[in-house]
């Protein structure tokens, strides 16, 4: 009898698990086994690591990224900074962060006055619908930022490999 009871316990658990993963599948086409996500706290500590005690001002930076992406594995992204590039006054670096990938950093891009235009483009992965933050560091030591919200239907980074 006891054995019977145990078996029914297990099957009930299985049923619940199945129901759970079915619900998950409803939202995400691929079942994800996801490690701890980066959190908004990790995002702000990553930004703090970059800027230190400096204040980050809004503006100057433009982040071009689609607001809705079907596949988080390749999201085209362009960051440009509306600032001159002269020998004495230029954009030193551009840093891109995210909120919910397994880690908050996406990329750091280092420019020189010879760049002529402060603009970089690449393709990134997004593990979830989230906020992407771009920060520019200028040669005078000031920091400027912008952010964009992206909705992702197929998550990247943590999917199970077939």
């Amino acid at each position, binding site marked *: 009898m006891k054995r019977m009871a145990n078996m029914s316990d297990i099957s009930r658990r299985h049923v619940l698990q199945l129901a759970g993963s079915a619900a998950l599948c409803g939202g995400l086409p691929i079942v994800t086994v996801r490690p701890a996500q980066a959190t908004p706290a990790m995002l702000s500590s990553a930004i703090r690591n970059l800027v230190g005690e400096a204040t980050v001002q809004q503006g100057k930076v433009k982040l071009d990224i689609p607001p809705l992406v079907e596949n988080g594995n390749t999201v085209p992204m362009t960051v440009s900074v509306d600032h001159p590039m002269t020998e004495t006054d230029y954009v030193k670096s551009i840093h891109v962060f995210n909120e919910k990938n*397994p880690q908050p950093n996406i990329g750091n891009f280092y420019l020189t006055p010879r760049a002529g235009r402060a603009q970089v483009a690449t393709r990134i992965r997004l593990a979830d619908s989230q906020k992407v933050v771009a920060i520019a560091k200028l040669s005078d030591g000031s920091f400027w930022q912008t952010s964009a919200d992206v909705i992702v239907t197929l998550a990247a980074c943590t999917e199970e490999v077939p």
Partner: protein
Amino acid sequence: MAALVNVPPKAKRGAVVEIKALMSHIMEPGYRRTAAGELIPRDIITSFTCRLNGAEIFRADLFPAISANPFMSFFTIATESGKFEFEWIGDNGFVANAAANITVE
């Protein structure tokens, strides 16, 4: 390990030119698991550098959030003719190079 770089072969002195570079690489983020539940170790390119006649003009730190076959586009002022050299460095001793010439007139 194939690189694809796009540099205008000719440019007017002082013009701002776009440079594009793509490297074929899996960029395994290190967070995915096999069906058996085993974590697949990270294997990414961590650094990309572009130099013109030996002087660095652009550099990037890459993280797992950069897509497979990392693509970079950036700009530079055409100041002198010469050779652009591209270098990708990554996990497990990955190193790859490419080069392209530009004539500035």
